């Protein structure tokens, strides 16, 4: 939108400059004599028409520099083009300054007037009737907001949603307020008339503001040619549709890449579905069809978060996957789901793994079966030459219960000076606080 306005301004300005240029050169066809302009003699015999004018001006212009050396000619061209470009840039800059000042003014005025009222509605502990909401907001039927004001109001509401955690009745009240103020209608309008970027942002805003739009708005966008918009619409469709919410979930005929951002968004959508008690599909068929390792890893973890026990049984076969990162995700998912039945499989596979995977297995064993693994942790400590793996094994041992603590101290007594630091490291409460806070998993 902004770019188009800028472009049209540039075009209009270029047109004005061209007209000015033609006008100036047209005057040069006359000869000044005192106060009188006398037409040049050839003008009585030669009639110029159509493209002749442009050709004439071109020759007139190039003629001015014909006698100069080529380097000087080019220098003149650079000077003139730079001057024109500078004028255009100045115009665009000043226009932007003006627009921004107006936006800021409108935003300030609306925030001053409505933000405390929004807060009052958001803090109400019960669902308020419409007339009470109108009263709080100080609105009547004639209240109407311009495009700029609507955009500012949405910004203010987004700010409020970041600062204030809304309860169920507050969400209902805020929805009513947005409807009363015409913001829902405005967003619906932008969903239809806006450009791709704007529609994508509207979808994000309605997700934050808990606005419920009819499915029909999304069905038109779930196959949109713009990839980003299509992804956003399909994700929202999962929440909004009740009949077949995962209709487009498995459809990736366009072979669109699945970037980490998509993982964050998809995970959040699934968590919303989970809290809405919406049945999630099995991800196992999706994993089998996908080629990329990253996406496989993601769905392995999602299965651990949201999948049922039947899905988890299927997941265990990924513990033998040839790709290390997929195997690592499968081990992590065992920890996420706390699958005690995987204990023996993990212990069996331990000695065939890389050090990184060994550390992951030790951490997972600590999560799923700490008490029965203390001997295993002690053995893992003795068996490896990697200081990092030793450190993880000792940490798991120390935290695996009374038996583990006794073993830990026995090992500590036998440890040489080079290894003693590892024991002190895992015992230190400040380093342990860091690990407990999730800052470090395998340290």
């Amino acid at each position, binding site marked *: 939108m902004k770019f188009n306005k800028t472009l049209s301004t540039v075009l209009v300005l270029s047109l004005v400059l061209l007209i000015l240029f033609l006008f100036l050169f047209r005057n040069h066809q006359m000869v000044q004599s005192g106060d009188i302009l006398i037409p040049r003699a050839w003008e009585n015999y030669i009639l110029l028409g159509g493209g002749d004018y442009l050709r004439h001006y071109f020759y007139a212009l190039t003629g001015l520099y014909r006698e100069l050396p080529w380097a000087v000619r080019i220098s003149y061209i650079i000077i003139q083009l*730079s001057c024109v*470009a500078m004028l255009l*840039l100045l115009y665009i*800059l000043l226009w932007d*300054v003006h627009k921004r000042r107006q936006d800021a003014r409108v935003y300030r005025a609306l925030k001053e007037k409505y933000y405390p009222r929004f807060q009052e509605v958001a803090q109400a502990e019960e669902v308020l009737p419409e007339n009470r909401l109108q009263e709080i907001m100080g609105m009547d039927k004639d209240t109407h907001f311009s495009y700029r004001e609507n955009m500012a109001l949405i910004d203010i509401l987004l700010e409020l949603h970041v600062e204030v955690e809304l309860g169920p009745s507050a969400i209902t009240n805020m929805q009513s307020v947005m409807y009363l103020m015409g913001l829902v209608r405005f967003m619906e309008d932008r969903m239809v008339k806006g450009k791709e970027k704007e529609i994508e942002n509207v979808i994000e*805003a309605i997700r934050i503001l808990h606005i419920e739009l009819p499915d029909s708005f999304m069905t038109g966008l779930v196959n949109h040619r713009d990839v980003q918009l299509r992804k956003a619409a399909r994700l929202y469709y999962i929440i909004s549709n009740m009949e077949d919410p995962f209709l487009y979930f498995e459809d990736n005929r366009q072979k669109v890449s699945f*970037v980490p951002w998509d993982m964050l968004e998809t995970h959040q959508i699934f968590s919303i579905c989970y809290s809405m008690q919406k049945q999630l599909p099995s991800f196992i068929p999706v994993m089998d069809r996908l080629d990329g390792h990253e996406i496989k890893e993601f769905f392995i973890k999602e299965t651990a978060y949201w999948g049922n026990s039947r899905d988890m049984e299927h997941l265990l076969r990924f513990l033998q996957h040839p790709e290390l990162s997929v195997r690592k995700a499968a081990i992590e998912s065992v920890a996420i789901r706390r699958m005690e039945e995987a204990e023996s499989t993990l212990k069996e596979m331990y000695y065939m793994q890389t050090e990184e995977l060994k550390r992951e297995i030790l951490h997972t064993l600590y999560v799923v079966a700490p008490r029965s693994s203390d001997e295993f942790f002690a053995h893992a400590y003795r068996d490896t030459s990697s200081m990092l793996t030793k450190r993880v094994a000792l940490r798991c041992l120390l935290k695996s219960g009374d038996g583990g603590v006794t073993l830990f101290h026995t090992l500590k007594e036998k440890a040489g000076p080079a290894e003693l630091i590892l024991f002190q*490291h895992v015992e230190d409460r400040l*380093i342990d606080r*860091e690990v407990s806070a999730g800052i470090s998993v395998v340290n």
Partner: protein
Amino acid sequence: MKEFILNFYGHAVFIYSLALILSYVALMWLAEISILRNKRRNLESYARNLLHKSSFTPGVSIVAPAYNEETTIVENVHSLLSQDYPLFEVIIVNDGSKDRTLERLIENFDLVEVPYAYVPQLKTKPYRRMFKSTRPEFARLKVVDKVNGGTKADAVNAGLNAAVFPYFINTDVDCILAKDAIFRCVLPLLKQENIIAVSGAMALSNGCKVEKGQIVEAYPPHAPVPLFQTLEYMRSFLIGKMGWSAINAMPNVSGGYGLFNREVVMAAGGYSPDSFAEDMDMLIRMVAYCCETKRPYRVVQIPYTCCWTEGPATLKVLSRQRVRWGRGLIQTFYKHRRLIGNPRYRQLGMVTLPYLLVFELTAPLIEFLGMLTLIFLGITGGVNWGYALVMFLAIYTFCILLSLFLISFDYTIGGSYKKIKSYLWIFLAALTEPFFYHPMVVFFSLRGYLNYLTGQKAVWGEMTRKGFSKKESTTK
């Protein structure tokens, strides 16, 4: 013969200048493409909400080496700790400071020595000890104390040995990070595949009002030396790097602020302690590693100011800095000469390095010889002063256009300064830069080249910092 040589040189220099102008036009166009790509972005509140709640949010370690930074260390560590990002740690590497840097950290953050089992994955000067804070609000802070390694690279490597997250930010402890610095750099990392480094724009903090380690009001410096550098920084980040970023041909991610994939940095051998341009050297080795192992990669520049740094305030300090940069540039080119023009190294080998060789490394030399020729011809009466003026004006007006373009860029994307008045100072610097600042920078670069070629012993010069509370101190 003399006339022929001078004539040839004159034409060659003019064609060189024209090519330089055209390359800048191309970079402006590419930068515009990058800026437009950045305009397509998520609502900020939506993105923050997502990052703060997700278990897939990547963790980031901030690594900041400190050597004799007692004046600014406390405020800057506060600034680093106040990042608005859910998962990060701050690692300060005390590189054998001779002043009270470590003591000030211990006093202000209630640090105690912890028995940390340090694993030296990258080789550095000996590690001494690790400190952690007893206060829960500083749980993210780690202070690594080590023997002085003489260069920033050695200290960063020590920080990387202690880091736990898959990404890290390499910054200087005298830098003030914007509160959303990590957030801004993580977004492209999440939105595109195979990113190995993200560079954030930097600006000078010399004119800014700083409170509790945060920039509360941003103004450009009014003193001439930092003001010219502000313009230079803007040109480098918003046109140079933004332009190269559009075609994945970034030559450098500044050592002042950049986010990197830790695994790739480690695999490429970490920072090189013998390099005087360790940031450029590191990126070249990262890209070379990716090309050699056929690993897809992307290096991106974002247009937002993530980091405010205190630039040299006097000519003496500026001279030392630029001599070192000049030395680092020629050293990096010599070290990586096999990459230049080598198609195996894709854009880096075929576009960026040849371009930098012709237009950055040799530019000071050509400019210097040009000045000598002009003086010689001026004395011998061989100059058409009218024509010379026109040619000078062509270069000058283009320089002004370039500066106006980047001012317009910076303002429209909501860049460094909020008020348009602030940009008038930058414009003033643009008008006067070619007469005063630029010739000096050319001279300093040439001294750097000469130092390297004559094998003079390299010294990391002293940098006088005023500190944000305006106290004077001397640091290296």
